[in-house]
């Protein structure tokens, strides 16, 4: 397929269909409505199914049922709706089901605003729902990456039997950029879904049960530990990040998603001002790219975390840096998108000896 100018939300939906997703259950919420709308138009054309659920609570439970029946299934929402889905996501992780979730982040807390934000990082990476589990979280910074990561998400979900989230923000959802949807093949070696509830006549009489209830504590512990062995493998093998201009950088900006692009522009300006600044861009937020920090630690003198939040990824950066270098933070919230000039000013203050 040639490159096509698409809106981010639509590109993500198209990517899901390209990856073999034929089932979408969701509910409208700004700023991601183009995803359900696109799915409602396109899925019936190819024999897929679009269901507009009565709420995000219902939607995530439809996802659970469909995933448990063996399908590749997508849901999407924005921050408040993702809050509603947390119970369901916990159940999906506990029942070891694959699914892809898209969060087009908006400003919070509460009803908040509809403009972009990055204030769901904690919710996405640290649980959100109850109990011990993780969601694999992929953070695209542009629309082609959103397409590629959405397709990757389906493979990772099937490989690990776990929910995978594409964490975008309202900017990514609403931007229009050229994207290319190449012919898609599922990753090699994905396990067969021989656990899916398709009826005992398909399994030679063996009953299949999708469940997360384990009332005997020793069984539940065993179950959770087994799930965490999956996460160990995820942390070993699925980390993705990008380093830009860090080879000689005194100050390393840490940013993801839309903010990383603003950081790029800021870095250009800083370099022209003679400041040696680089970018460490996590692409997987879980698993967090701790290894990336080891790569830059030799050269970097300080870090500047920039987020559209009051500081959430900041905590993981602190863990990664482990006190070895000073960490500054610059955040905007309320739906405000920082300008490159603001970031340049922060860098200048750090370079001038004042770490914010």
């Amino acid at each position, binding site marked *: 397929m040639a490159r096509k100018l698409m809106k981010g939300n639509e590109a993500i939906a198209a990517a899901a269909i390209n990856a073999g997703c034929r089932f979408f259950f969701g509910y409208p919420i700004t700023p991601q409505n183009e995803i359900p709308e696109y799915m409602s138009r396109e899925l019936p054309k190819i024999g897929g199914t679009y269901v507009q659920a009565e*709420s995000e609570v219902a939607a995530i*439970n439809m996802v659970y049922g*469909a995933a448990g*029946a063996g399908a590749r299934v997508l849901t999407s929402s924005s921050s408040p709706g993702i809050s509603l889905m947390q119970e369901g996501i916990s159940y999906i992780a506990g029942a070891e089901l694959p699914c892809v979730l898209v969060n087009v982040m908006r400003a919070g807390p509460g009803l908040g605003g509809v403009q972009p934000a990055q204030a769901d990082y904690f919710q996405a990476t640290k649980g959100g729902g109850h109990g011990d589990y993780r969601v694999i979280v992929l953070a695209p910074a542009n629309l082609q990456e959103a397409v590629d990561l959405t397709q990757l998400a389906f493979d990772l979900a099937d490989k690990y039997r776990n929910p995978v989230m594409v964490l975008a923000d309202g900017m990514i959802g609403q931007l229009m950029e050229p994207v290319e949807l190449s012919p898609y093949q599922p990753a090699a070696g994905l396990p067969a879904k021989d656990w899916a509830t398709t009826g005992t006549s398909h399994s030679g009489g063996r009953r299949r049960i999708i469940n997360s209830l384990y009332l005997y504590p020793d069984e539940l512990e065993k179950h959770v530990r087994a799930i965490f062995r999956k996460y160990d493998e995820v942390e070993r093998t699925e980390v993705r990040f990008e380093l830009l201009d860090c080879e000689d950088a005194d100050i390393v900006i840490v940013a993801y998603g839309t903010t990383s692009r603003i950081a790029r522009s800021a870095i250009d300006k800083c370099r022209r001002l003679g400041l040696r600044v680089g970018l460490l861009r996590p692409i997987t937020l879980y698993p967090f790219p701790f290894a990336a920090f080891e790569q830059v630690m030799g050269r970097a003198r300080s870090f500047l975390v920039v987020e559209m939040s009051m500081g959430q990824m900041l905590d993981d950066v602190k863990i990664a840096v482990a006190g070895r270098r000073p960490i500054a933070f610059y955040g905007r919230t309320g739906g405000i998108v920082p300008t490159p000039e603001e970031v340049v000013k922060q860098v200048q203050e750090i370079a001038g000896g004042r770490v914010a």
Partner: protein
Amino acid sequence: MKVVYEKSPGLTDVPMHYCPGCTHGIIHKLVAETLVELDVLGRAVVVAPVGCAVFAYDYFNCDAQEAAHGRAPAVATGIKRVHPDNIVFTYQGDGDLASIGMGEIVHAAMRGENITVVFVNNAIYGMTGGQMAPTTLVGQPTTTSPTGRSRIGQGAPLRVCEMLATIEATTYIARVSVHTIPRLNAAKRAIKKAFQLQLENKGFSLVEVLSTCPTNWGLSPVDALRWVEQNMIPIYPLGVYKDVEGGT
């Protein structure tokens, strides 16, 4: 000698954990027998609730998914949309369906999802120890209505069949009981009709079964059956509330 009655192969060998005389056991049997008689056991999927029947996946001899509290109709929607040839049914109590799950049941009915819902109404929350349910009767004492459900402040019971029957895309809605053999036989006919309709892709069906909770009602199992007759049926009249097909 021929068999008059034997345990249905639609049930597993797992002994049921229900209290002595609890009608869950009877209702499980009626559903299990129906699945066998319609020859759909091999493509049935039960969606288990949260409630006393949370272990339904251990008792029905078919595939199963455990749902979050109240969400079974949404889970069933997901399964049925992926595999329309599966016979998908939910089995829910009065907290699961009429309290936390009210949104999901109304909307599954609204969409006319081609699923079957078995609604077990015993006017109380059994598993959690006897709290008030949306279907608790006015004046009925429970652990959260210790002086009896009060019309002021706690309202009056929800009549699920009557409510859902107003939803256009439903196909079959019936209320039955199992407290006598004739009522039990009629309950089975209603359940069978409901599953038959799904088999024929005719749409959404729900059978509400008035049930007992001897433990939390504080009655013997036999007295609990009488309580259904004397106290529940006047409030929840038995009958067919919607039957698009006719001929019940």
